[in-house]
């Protein structure tokens, strides 16, 4: 009798932990990507805050090429023509200011927590 109960408890425990890990990975999935649109000579949103491990994707919707260059030289895109993308995964917390090296008045920031 005891062994049956024990088995039931184990199974239940297993089921719960499975649900929890599913929930956790669902959270990771939605936190793991973010998008910044480049248009009209600006980054939108200009400042974003994301969790560690997020992959940020910049997409150029402007009719002029732009670049995404970290001021601390942490990342640097190639030249992005219209509709081209650049992605970078932030593995360490911190502040990451960046700009467009072609039009340096365009600036943005990624804050990783």
């Amino acid at each position, binding site marked *: 009798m005891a062994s049956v109960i024990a088995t039931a408890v184990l199974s239940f425990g297993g089921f719960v932990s499975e649900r929890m890990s599913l929930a956790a990975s669902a959270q990771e999935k939605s936190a793991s990507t973010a998008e910044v649109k480049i248009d*009209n000579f600006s980054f939108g949103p200009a400042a974003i805050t994301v969790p560690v491990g997020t992959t940020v994707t910049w997409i150029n919707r402007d009719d002029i090429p732009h670049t995404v260059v970290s001021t601390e030289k942490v990342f640097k895109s190639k030249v992005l023509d219209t509709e081209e993308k650049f992605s970078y995964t932030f593995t360490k917390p911190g502040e990451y200011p960046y700009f467009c090296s072609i039009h340096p008045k365009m*600036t943005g920031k990624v804050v990783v927590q």
Partner: protein
Amino acid sequence: MSMRWGDVCSLEEEKMAGNMKDEILHDHNHDGIDRRGFLKCMAWAGTGAFCVMQGGVLKSYSMSRIAEMNPENVRGEFSFVQISDSHMGFNKAANPDVAATLKAAVDKINALPARPEFLLHTGDISHLSKPEEFDGVEQILKNASAKDVFYVPGEHDVLNDDGKEYLERFGKGAQAGGWYSFEKKGVHFVGLVNVMNLKAGGLGTLGREQLQWLEKDVKHLKSSTPIIVFAHIPLWAVYPDWGWGTEDSAQALSYLKKFGSVTVLNGHIHQTMQKVEGNVTFHTACSTAFPQPKPGEAPSPGPMKVPAEQLRSVLGITDVNYVRGQHALGVVDSTLA
């Protein structure tokens, strides 16, 4: 007000008509030449006129009368043409065929009454720094009446490898960073590079090495030597919010204070603008590819769409005439229409 070609008048006729308008050309000669009437003509025509200083007198001729003109009458000491911002490779709505408009600019150059000695290209030759884009421009310019072309890079020309492609093609004989100078008929030309190593939030920049070179380059020239400086981004603060300025240009200009005549020719803003400050005349050229909005008149300085039939009237070339002994150069913008 729209005027047809045939309506463009000569300077003398305008004087008789007594029509005056605000001066927009440079006159620090104070030589009593009435340029106002001429400028009003230019404004009406919209497509400009050919003008040359001869023996101290500014003469203007309608471009529509080119065929009738005797080349001798329209020659100064020499002339050259500035073109800018060809953006070879650009193909969006503002101009799907920049090669065609560049060819139209060459046609305009070839129709000038006096053959220009050379061309100055003030940058953004290519749109994405691609070899085939540079090739495309060089090929088209081979058909110009002026065979020599002097270039300075725009920010679109130095996108990869610190401008390696541009420097290999156009940097021969220049300093390592691409700047250089040369003389033509006693006029000292300086090509500057202000599009490398741009800093976040910044404007165009010349940098210490280039400034030091410039100081030495002009140090021993006589103050009567006319100086022409050409660079891509304007060397005066046209509109800093849009990056239309150069952060260390004041230092460059300080080395040119002693000269009686300094002309600065720039591009980048895709529209003509003039400014006179003491002995320095600043002038920006139209693009041969697409126009951009006037400062602050749009959310951003991007390509400005105009109805297709108007495109050529907002693109253009700049014809520059020099007559020895005159401080002011004859600088004339004409559109491709």
